[in-house]
């Protein structure tokens, strides 16, 4: 190695040169004030960077992040609970309807009328009568009112949650 470059000086600094190459760099640097100055400057840069101070965060970021994490965990649990409750209600409703239909089928079952079509017509008729009576004008008003109330309550909670999330996000 008869020539030297900044690249070689960097490798020299990082200890990436072989023993012979390092000795050659030492020889060239000692014989040239320019290269000596460059190596000294490079060493100074390396030293300063190694001792660079780490800036510290002025506020308690740990508590803030932990608060957010705990809030997220809590809301996740609440969401889970909400889904479980809604699913349970839906399943209970389905089971009630199926149970009621089954009960009606058993109650109205008469072995002397063995014709399947007759049974089907009969039970379909009883189900349709039941549904018609359930969804009559008065009941529909009540169902509508309950449904609207439920919607209003849900809208309030959604609005409230979004407000809290926005506050936490800031």
């Amino acid at each position, binding site marked *: 190695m008869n020539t030297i470059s900044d690249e070689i000086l960097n490798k020299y600094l990082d200890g990436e040169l072989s023993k012979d190459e390092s000795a050659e760099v030492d020889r060239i640097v000692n014989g040239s004030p320019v290269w000596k*100055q460059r190596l000294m400057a490079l060493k100074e840069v390396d030293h300063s960077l190694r*001792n660079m*101070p780490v800036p510290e965060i002025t506020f308690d970021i740990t508590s803030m992040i*932990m608060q957010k994490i705990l809030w997220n965990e809590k809301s996740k649990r609440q969401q889970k609970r909400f889904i479980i409750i809604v699913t349970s209600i839906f399943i209970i409703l389905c089971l009630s309807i199926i149970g009621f239909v089954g009960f009606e089928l058993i109650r109205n079952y008469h072995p002397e009328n063995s014709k399947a079509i007759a049974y089907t017509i009969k039970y379909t008729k009883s189900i349709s009568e039941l549904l018609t009576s359930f969804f009559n004008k008065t009941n529909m008003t009540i169902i509508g009112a309950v449904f609207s109330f439920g919607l209003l309550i849900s809208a309030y909670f959604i609005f409230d949650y979004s407000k809290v999330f926005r506050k936490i996000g800031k």
Partner: protein
Amino acid sequence: MKDISDLEIIESVKNGNHSDYSLLIDRYKNRAFSMLKKMLRNEMDAEEVLQDCFLKAYSGLKNFRSEAKFSTWFYRIVYNTALTRISAKRRQTENEMSSIDDLPELKSNDDYESSEKKDISKFINDTIDQLPPKYATVINLFYIDGMSCEEVSEIMNIGVPNVKVILHRSRNALKDLLIARNYVMEIL
């Protein structure tokens, strides 16, 4: 608490001790903040992105493979989140960061008068704030976090030779500034 390894903390958090995550936050917050501050050049943005990074890391902990190093994995999140923030702020930054060839000429701060000349460290610290985000990240990870070029390359998703090129160029630029400002003559 210092004796507990990152992996032990992660296992504890995974087992339901959510509050143990604060140990990881305390361990990495300042160094990650330093990197973000240099990349984003704005303290407020750095704090905001840092919070996002810790939240992202927390939600991603269940996917974290214990054979990887948490620091490498976390800094990759930090680096990518910072890049996304920079892209959102300045679309043209994409070009600025895409190549390692375009290191802008660093300028020394003329406010440094002779009385401050000896404070080389301060001069260098202030000057490296001018480095492009990619260069600042390499310097930060290599010097402040004491990572190897291989780890830096893994975090930044660039080759090891590129990491070395960035490192050498940054040092050379700072070295040239020191020579131009006659700092080294005083040392000699």
